[in-house]
């Protein structure tokens, strides 16, 4: 902490310019605003590039279309993973960190010059890795499992990117310290900032694991190290790869709370419960890399069971708690706003035409039902045998990281553009349908890839017909059908993605300046509606029948799906 504090103090002398947000009354440091802007714009550019690659991949895996030749398919798939999973998500997360610290705490941002340095490192790293991929000798997938070797600048780009992201985390921590020191807020940090803090703490662990594995791999690629053990690589690589997914979860859950607060004035049911749930993420995820190693040789069952469950189920517990408290907070707010009829009037009369809300709610539901349930099932020691490396795996994580994280990030953009960039959303009609298009598309690709996976379709595979294999195998007609449906829904998702990019870019560059009296969508942040919502603490909360029904449905679906998969497992060849 001391070096961070010193860095913070060193620039205390800079001239800080603030503006006051007309909607929220928050003081916004213009330096922070510019950095949020730069990181968010970079994020959207990488999403546009990476999303296009995803679409090309899906079209190639659509048997009737089979678009790209094999070399291009594998190259573009490598580019897809890196650009969306790493670059889009992490640039956006850095923007979220700056927002949750400087803006929400009314504070100046620590050391903006360093923050720019971090940004530049990230851009250089991301571009370098992309160049390596497009030169064609780094088609190794973003996981780059040895002994398969990429060009040296593939790894170096990733390392630079990670260092830049680490700088972003340091700026975030330093800003928290400054805000505390300078007393820019009273009491504890807001829940959203707490969620962001969770994300940042996990990010530090993650990046440390990344350094431990990527630096030797880089040295190996330039010939300074002779051998990287492939199993050891995976253990450490996934300590980064899995933990970083928990960064995404923390960040998008924080965004769920933020959108619910800003759009409907929802208050956390209980600060204690929600914060504890975030804290579980920090405590119990370090070992979760285990669930990527369930069918590897030479790892004991005890280790696998202990690690996947100890780490996973208590982190899962955190998510299940948020799964109650987020819709619960929304229901409570809506009921106090007068939507009290039946179990679900609060939900029917929610602002479904506001893309920030619709995107957030779809993200919440799909992350839980699709990504969450499938993730736990996939991460069960024995069931993993049925699914490992089939296309079920990308099916699962398009449920978490696309339908969940990406959709939540898209949703919050509809608030960031007017509130931070101070631009009206152009094409509000398109913006309104965007979350639905993208959400349904993402749900479709997740479910159909999962379906295809249960029929054995391999992931990262150019030719389902195996036409060029000397000893061919014929997949079932159902498998081909699933991959075709996947292509159809990929088209929807791509359409939703394009609309998002177009609306955001057009709004940022050509949108009218926001006029505080007439925003496109209402933000009851400061309105009396919010004040009506009542006190903190769930003991003072109205009853929540709708939320209870929702979580009960979820719970039953979860149990059924879990045990159905054990049933499937019991039908395969005995194995010991």
């Amino acid at each position, binding site marked *: 902490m001391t070096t961070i504090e010193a860095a913070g103090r060193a620039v205390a002398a800079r001239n800080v310019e603030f503006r006051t947000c007309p909607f929220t009354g928050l003081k916004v440091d213009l330096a922070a605003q510019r950095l949020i802007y730069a990181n968010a714009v970079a994020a959207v550019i990488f999403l546009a590039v990476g999303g296009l690659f995803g679409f090309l991949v899906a079209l190639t895996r659509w048997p009737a279309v089979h678009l790209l030749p094999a070399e291009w398919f594998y190259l573009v798939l490598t580019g897809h993973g890196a650009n969306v999973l790493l670059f889009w998500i992490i640039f956006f997360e850095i923007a979220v960190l700056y927002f949750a610290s400087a803006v929400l705490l009314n504070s100046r941002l620590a050391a903006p010059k360093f923050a720019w340095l971090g940004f530049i490192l990230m851009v250089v790293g991301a571009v370098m890795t992309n160049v390596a991929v497009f030169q064609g000798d780094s088609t190794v997938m973003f996981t780059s499992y040895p002994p398969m070797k990429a060009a040296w600048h593939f790894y170096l780009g990733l390392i630079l990117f990670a260092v830049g992201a680490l700088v972003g985390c340091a700026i975030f921590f330093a800003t928290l310290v400054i805000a505390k020191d300078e007393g820019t807020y009273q009491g504890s940090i807001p829940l959203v900032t707490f969620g962001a803090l969770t994300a940042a703490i996990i990010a530090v662990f993650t990046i440390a694991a990344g350094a431990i594995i990527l630096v030797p791999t880089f040295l190996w690629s330039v010939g300074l190290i002779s051998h990287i053990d492939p199993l050891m690589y995976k253990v450490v690589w996934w300590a980064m790869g899995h933990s970083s997914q928990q960064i995404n979860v923390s960040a998008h859950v924080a965004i769920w709370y933020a959108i619910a607060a*800003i759009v409907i004035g929802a208050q956390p049911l209980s600060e204690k419960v929600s914060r504890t749930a975030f804290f579980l993420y920090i405590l119990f995820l370090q070992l979760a890399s285990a669930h990527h190693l369930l069918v590897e*040789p030479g790892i004991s069952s005890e280790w696998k069971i202990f690690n996947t469950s100890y780490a996973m189920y208590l982190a899962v517990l955190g998510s299940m708690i948020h799964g109650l408290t987020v819709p619960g907070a929304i229901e409570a707010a809506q009921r106090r706003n007068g939507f009290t009829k039946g179990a679900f009037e609060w939900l029917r009369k929610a602002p479904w035409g506001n893309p920030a809300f619709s995107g957030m709610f779809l993200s919440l539901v799909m992350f839980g039902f699709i990504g969450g349930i499938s993730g736990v099932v996939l991460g069960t020691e024995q069931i993993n045998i049925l699914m490992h490396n089939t296309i079920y795996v990308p099916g699962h994580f398009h449920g978490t990281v696309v339908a969940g994280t990406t959709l939540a990030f898209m949703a919050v953009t509809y608030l960031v553009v007017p509130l931070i960039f101070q631009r009206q959303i152009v094409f509000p009609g398109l913006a309104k349908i965007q979350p639905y298009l993208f959400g349904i598309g993402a749900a479709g690709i997740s479910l159909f890839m999962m379906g295809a996976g249960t029929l054995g379709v391999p992931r990262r595979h150019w030719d389902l017909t195996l036409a060029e294999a000397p000893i061919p195998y014929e997949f079932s007609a159902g498998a081909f059908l699933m991959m075709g449906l996947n292509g159809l829904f990929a088209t929807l998702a791509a359409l939703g993605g394009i609309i998002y990019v177009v609306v955001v870019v057009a709004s940022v560059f050509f949108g009218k300046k926001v006029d505080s009296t007439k925003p496109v969508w209402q933000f009851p942040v400061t309105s009396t509606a919010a004040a009506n919502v009542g006190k903190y603490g769930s003991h003072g909360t109205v009853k929540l029948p709708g939320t209870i029904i929702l979580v009960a449905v979820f719970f039953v679906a979860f149990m059924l799906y879990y045990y159905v998969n054990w049933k499937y497992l019991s039908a395969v060849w005995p*194995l010991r």
Partner: protein
Amino acid sequence: MAVTPPAQRIWWKEPVERVELVWTALAFLWGVAMFATMIIWHIVGQQNLANEAYRIQPERFMERTEAFVEKYKVGEQGDTGVPVVRPPAGSDVYMLGRLWEWWPVLELEKGQSYRLHLSSVDWQHGFSLQPVNINIQVHPGYEHVLTITPDQAGEYGIVCNEFCGIGHHTMAGKIIVVDRNTPKRGQ
């Protein structure tokens, strides 16, 4: 609100509503149940992946597999030149993954158990037995030994589901499961 500091400074002392406590307890118990299910399956379940594995030089594994093929070869798969091997029931059998084939083709008897030795001699590969859908990661330098008991006769494909370079989608192999007293080929 979630974007502002908690209204009550001492937020960690608030009482918590029943519904949250009940849900948290349920979710926790569910976690315990899932944890227990994995352990119970090790005791009563028929499908558990073996933990037996050895470090091995890829060349050594290749030699052993070749010796195995030499000993029990009964024919070739079509005109591919890939040997078909019919080992005695209950014996140790070998299969290696390499760019880009699963080698050799195995002919096994239904209902018999075999100790299958799996490894790679170059990159990582994904052993994916279809349509049974048993999927196992195969590493160079590690020999994984598992006991399989094919319980239905038929021809099974093995595709590769770990990306292993440009020929990945051409990498496939076969296990043929025959009824107990089917005679060996050529006899």
